[in-house]
């Protein structure tokens, strides 16, 4: 009887401790969100989303070009990074047990630990110097280099999780191995891969350092890939380190915009995932 009371007491104590730790973990996140929302909402308006930045002191202005820039940079990065990353992941999972596979895996692990500013320097050295100008391409490449290693490793894990019995079932139907990998295995792992992709995009959208000396910044609208481009993160950086009060306000608002964009992208994808999961599972 005493043992039972003791056990119950320990149970309650540990539960309380875990709950406390959850609070400690979530509290900073919550307070961060609260801070950004409360400080940023003041500067939000429709024009903030669509207008170009204005010089100091002038009223109005917005981060329209930065939103477009971030979208295009991330979009270009995905164009390169997604096929490369997912492809590498599939290769590592299906055929990555030999020496070449081990080398690729090692490279991916090393790269995923490299600081993002170093990646930026690499992109500077490769693209900016060659093109003799800062450009959207350089920025996109830097972001892609950030996305690929983690995407590859996540994809590999997810593909390995697909039961071997599914592969066997497909092969036994007389489906060639490459088609099995693509249209059966990949399709089964698609849900998890989508999550990994979202995470990669969110990270790319939130990077500042690699963009500082690749895509630089731009005060005007730009859709040409060979020109410097504005991005939300760099714009926030510029506004934040300035000595002007109204620019600080703009920094908070721009941060809120970035959070909203990434957050809604996440939500959209989760909804899409749930719909496809409901169709394929339940």
């Amino acid at each position, binding site marked *: 009887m005493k043992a039972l009371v003791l056990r119950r007491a320990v149970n309650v104590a540990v539960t309380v401790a875990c709950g406390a730790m959850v609070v400690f973990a979530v509290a900073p996140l919550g307070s961060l969100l609260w801070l950004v929302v409360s400080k940023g909402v003041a500067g939000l308006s429709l024009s903030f989303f669509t207008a170009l930045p204005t010089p100091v002191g002038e009223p109005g202005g917005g981060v329209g070009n930065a939103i477009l820039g971030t979208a295009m940079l991330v979009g270009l990065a995905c164009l390169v990074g997604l096929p490369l990353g997912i492809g590498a992941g599939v290769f590592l999972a299906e055929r990555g047990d030999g020496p070449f596979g081990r080398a690729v895996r090692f490279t991916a692990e090393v790269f995923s630990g490299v600081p993002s500013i170093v990646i930026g320097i690499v992109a500077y050295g490769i693209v900016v110097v060659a093109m003799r100008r800062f450009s959207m391409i350089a920025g996109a490449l830097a972001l892609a280099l950030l996305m690929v290693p983690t995407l590859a490793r996540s994809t590999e894990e997810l593909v390995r999780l697909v039961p071997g*019995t599914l592969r066997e*079932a*497909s092969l*036994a*139907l*007389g489906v060639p191995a490459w088609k099995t990998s693509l249209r059966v295995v990949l*399709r089964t792992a698609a849900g998890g891969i989508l999550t990994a992709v979202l995470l990669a995009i969110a990270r790319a959208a939130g990077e500042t350092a690699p963009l500082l000396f690749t895509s630089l910044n731009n005060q005007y609208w730009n859709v040409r890939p060979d020109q410097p481009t504005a991005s939300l993160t760099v714009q926030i950086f510029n506004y934040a380190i300035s000595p002007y009060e109204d620019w600080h306000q703009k920094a908070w608002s721009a941060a809120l915009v970035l959070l909203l964009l990434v957050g809604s992208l996440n939500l959209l994808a989760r909804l899409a995932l749930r719909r496809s999961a409901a169709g394929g599972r*339940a």
Partner: protein
Amino acid sequence: MNGPIKLRVERLQARFGDHHVLRDVTLEVPASSVMAVIGPSGCGKSTFLRCLNRMHELVPGASSEGGVYLDGEDLYRRGVDPVLLRRRVGMVFQRPNPFPTMSIRDNVAAGLKLNGFRGRLDDVVERCLRQAALWDEVKDRLRAPATSLSGGQQQRLCIARALAVEPEVLLMDEPASALDPVATAKIEELMHELKERYTIVIVTHNMQQAARVSDRTAFFYMGELVEAGATEKIFTNPTEQRTEDYVTGKFG
């Protein structure tokens, strides 16, 4: 049943690296019959089955020698495409493995769709589901996910999927071992119907099941084919002492 021979195996050997798993197996399977392959765990019966549709060689380090003749044609001859071969020799596995992201209909049609079939899939789907004795249970929910079916239904779905590519031989690796007795009985009844159009080779560790469903039985022990013959003879008066001992429960 004493008709033409569909599958002939001649001096088949199989290895995993240095491990010699099958030795000198020679066997004939008549067309439109059911051959049961029995034996204790580790005797090589699953390996044998996988040699028949060349899935054994997909395991890294695996190798095999000898001949497997389908209608007289050597499946291991140079130039034979294993992928095409597997459309003539289909396989159903121990645990039901429908594709989880696809509906019932898409699962049955998977073999065809993935291989570029362009005809009317719905007819094929219905035909195969009827052959697998599953049509009546699922005809109103063909778009439902395959994973919403019970274990026994999923296994029949896998059988329908295998039948959709119109194989000549159906290999079954302990198809009912993960199912309850009622589902097992349905699968056994199914085999009875299917054997009119297909030749079936079933691996089972359940001797009573082998006795119920098969026309001929082959007993494997430690990689060797000990005895093969009419099922009735194997279970009432086998020739080899080892067969006698296994069948009466003296070991294994």
